[in-house]
C-alpha cells in the first residue's frame, strides 16, 4: 500500500513506532490528534504512518516529539546525512534528505505518494476520487 502526499509530510515506519517510549502503537498515536485530522492529515497504510504540516517549523516540532519518544531522525553515511527512523517528504520534491527505505512516486494522474521500499504499491491511502 502507499500514502498520498500533501505539503510537508512526516513518515514513520510502523515497525519503528513500536520502539517509542510512550506513543508506541497507532491507537495511542491517534489519540494525539483531532479526530477530524484522521484520514485527512494523519494517514497510514500497513507499513507507514504519515503526519503532515504546511511549514517546516511545525515539522521540526514533530521531529523533536518523535526524537523524545526515542526515534533517531537522521544518520550519517560516508559523510552524508540520511533520514534514519523517520523521513520528511516534500509533496513535490520528495524526501528532503536521502532515505533508504522509502520510495517516492510522482504520478500525473494520482499526484505524489510514498510506499515502503520492497513492498507492493497496491491501494493508495488518502486518495479520494471525485
Amino acid at each position, binding site marked *: 500500500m502507499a500514502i*498520498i502526499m500533501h505539503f510537508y509530510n512526516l513518515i514513520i515506519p510502523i515497525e519503528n513506532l513500536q520502539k517509542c517510549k510512550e506513543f508506541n502503537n497507532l491507537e495511542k498515536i491517534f489519540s494525539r490528534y483531532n479526530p477530524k485530522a484522521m484520514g485527512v492529515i494523519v494517514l497510514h497504510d500497513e507499513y507507514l504512518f504519515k503526519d503532515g*504540516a504546511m511549514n517546516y517549523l511545525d515539522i521540526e516540532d514533530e521531529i523533536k516529539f518523535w526524537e523524545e519518544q526515542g526515534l533517531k531522525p537522521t544518520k550519517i553515511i560516508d559523510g552524508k546525512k540520511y533520514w534514519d527512523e523517520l*523521513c520528511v517528504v516534500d*509533496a513535490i520534491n520528495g524526501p528532503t534528505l*536521502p532515505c533508504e527505505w522509502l520510495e517516492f*512516486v510522482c504520478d500525473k494522474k494520482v499526484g505524489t505518494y510514498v510506499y515502503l521500499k520492497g513492498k507492493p504499491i497496491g491501494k493508495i491511502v488518502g486518495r*479520494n476520487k471525485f
Partner: protein
Amino acid sequence: MAFIGWTLSGIFLNNIKTAYAPTYNSTAPVIESRDFGDIVPGWNKIPKLDRLGIGLMFGGITNKVSFGKKVVNEIVNKFGTGSSRHLIKMYHGSANQFSEILENGFQKAGSLWLTDSAAAANAYQYKFGLTDNFGVKMIELSKKLLVNLINAGHVVVKEVLDARFPFAKEYEFDDYGRKVINSILKKD
C-alpha cells in the same frame, strides 16, 4: 527520464517548474527547470513565433504542458490580463507555530506551502484540536505577482485530487518565493 520530461515541457514553458514529473525513487530529487534553448543548439536563434509553430507540430508534446502553466492560464482567464490589482487569497495553517509566523513571517529557510483552500488550511490548523499556538494566516497576492512567480519557476503548483478539498491547489514557494511572501506580510 526526468530530464526528458523537463525538456519536452520546456518547449513551451521556458523556466516553468511543474509539479509532475516521471516516477523516480527516493534519492533526494531536485526539480530543475531547463530552457529548451540550452539543450537544442540554435533553438534560441529561431524567432519566437516559429518556435511555437515547431512546438505545435509535436502534437503529443502539448499534453506535457505543465500544471503550472494551466494555473497561469486559469488565473488570466478568470481575472483577465488588464488589471494586476486583483488579489488572490491564499492560506497557511499552522498547528504549533502560529505566533512565530505572525511575529516574524516565514523565517525558516527553504520552501513554503500555501493553499487556495481555506478548508485545507483549517484542517492543518486544527490538527491537534485547540493548542496554544495555532491559526490560519491569509495572504493576498496580486494576480500579476503570482503569475510572474510561477513563470519564473519560484512557485510550483500541485493539484489536489481529493473530494474533501474540491478544486484546491497547493502552491510551493521556493526560498525566493518565501521571501516575497514575507515582504507582503511585513506590509500588512
